[in-house]
């Protein structure tokens, strides 16, 4: 590793590490110096203990379940977003027709939807996948559409004289041009995805992080709850980094940072 490379890594790794440490320190200080009871905010140490103690028995299997729901749901959501954006963009009247319906899908609370979903799909992984997909497709769709419509009309016009039919305009111009914005939407989507899976599990489940959380919350086992939140955060951070990396790979022509 060259010194320059080393410095770049340091610039990327140090600030977040420092921030996390600061937060941990603040958290620890609050729990140590204030009379805040442990069922409200346990100390970081207690959470780590809960994490370690329950990892093999409860948390790891739950993480696997919620992780699978998240990934499947995201996959379905992103594919749906892509297809919806394509169709809605291609058929303008359809767009005006469907847009309110898309918005409506976001306004039905999971609690209302959950019974219908479980009736249709049972209490397995399927309704959670649907909940995740339903909550993640929307940011991607909106961003992708906005990106596709923000393309310089002069470029489109020129391309039309260069044998580009509507399909070529879509695939060779609008979609690549929209990639950066679609990735912004995907960042938002992946950030919501694991929590959506947990929501999905609230709506009836027998395993997963959300299931255990819902058990632990009313029981005031806040240490376990926060251990689950820590897992959830790690999962989300991983997905977020993955998307950032994908964006980096997929959009090499873009200006970087400031």
């Amino acid at each position, binding site marked *: 590793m060259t010194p320059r490379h080393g410095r770049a890594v340091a610039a990327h790794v140090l600030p977040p590490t420092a921030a996390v440490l600061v937060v941990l320190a603040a958290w620890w200080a609050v729990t140590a110096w204030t009379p805040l009871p442990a*069922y409200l905010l346990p100390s970081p140490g207690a959470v780590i203990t809960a994490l370690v103690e329950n990892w093999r028995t409860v948390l790891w299997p739950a993480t696997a379940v919620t992780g699978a729901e998240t990934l499947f749901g995201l996959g379905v959501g992103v594919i749906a977003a892509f297809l919806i954006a394509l169709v809605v963009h291609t058929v303008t009247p359809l767009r005006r027709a469907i847009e309110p319906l898309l918005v409506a899908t976001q306004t039905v609370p999971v609690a209302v939807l959950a019974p219908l979903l479980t009736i249709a799909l049972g209490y397995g992984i399927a309704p959670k996948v649907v909940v995740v997909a339903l909550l993640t497709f929307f940011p991607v769709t909106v961003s992708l559409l906005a990106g596709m419509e923000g393309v310089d009309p002069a470029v489109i016009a020129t391309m039309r004289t260069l044998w580009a039919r509507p399909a070529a305009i879509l695939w060779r111009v609008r979609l690549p041009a929209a990639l950066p914005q679609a990735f912004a939407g995907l960042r938002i989507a992946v950030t919501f995805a694991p929590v959506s899976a947990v929501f999905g599990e609230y709506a009836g489940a027998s395993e997963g992080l959300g299931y255990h959380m819902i058990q632990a919350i009313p029981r005031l086992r806040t240490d376990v709850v926060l251990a689950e939140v820590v897992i959830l955060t790690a999962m989300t951070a991983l997905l977020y980094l993955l998307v950032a990396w994908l964006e980096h790979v997929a959009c090499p022509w873009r200006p970087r940072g400031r």
Partner: protein
Amino acid sequence: TQGAVDTDQTSRSVDVLLDWTPNPDHLALYTAQAAGYYDEAGVDVTFTTPSGTADAAKMVSLGQTDLAVSYEPDTLIAESEGLDVVSVAALVPRSITSLMTWSGSGISGPEDLAGHTVGTSGLASQETTVDWIARQHGVDPDTISYVNLSQGLNQPLIDHQVDATFGAYPNIEGVELAEHGDFPSFTATEMGVPDYAELVVIAQRSRLDDDADYAQRVRDFLAATARGQQDAENDPQTAVAALREPTAGAYTDEQLRTMVERTVPLTVNDRGFGRQDTADWATYANWMRDNGLLEQDVDGASGHTNDLLPEV
């Protein structure tokens, strides 16, 4: 029946939707499962946690789940809404829903409710019940403010964000609260509300009539559950051991033991496991109707059946 097990394993499955997350109220169920009584009865039982209290009646009525653990009030509401359900057993054959308060809240009984904040788990029936209790004790219900706390009834009580909660059970939430101080508690029956079965097992009424195999599975399930109940009554430690795994991450061993010890007496049924009293059902249904909790006139007697229970 043994032959049926061998020929068709899957049709012998019994999916049970719980009323809530697994807790010592379910000691009969988990003790039976841990002891292998369901296997012996040839039924393959799965327990699932629902999204909310309304799931039970809906899912059973639609045949999405074979059985569900629900409440007598909710079962009566479901019946009045025309759902296809019937209560086939009482798991907790008495009312245990309680008004809990913290000492120092200024509430030393239902007569002190005026001007206080009461947290509920978000059920209209709970507000109505507290209103009724208040009126019975000479308190103007309009002076009570309600907060919907969903799942977390205890924490706001401990932190004195509410003066009382209504909906928690003394054998569960009461044990948790005890670790945080003194929290006086009054059951609904103590405050004059007619008694009812807190937890019941509901089944799909029409299917019991049409589907003999289903009826048989329900019988087998209930018979095995009765054995679980008996074991728990004989030695609560059996129930503690059975509940340890399903409640991992929720209760400490110490809590679990205390809760089971408090729960067992509440589940004891003098008439025999699961038996429901027709007069009690009718009285409670009338009380609900009088208080606007039932849309239509419901004959409480029709809401339950003891026919599928094992002989005493």
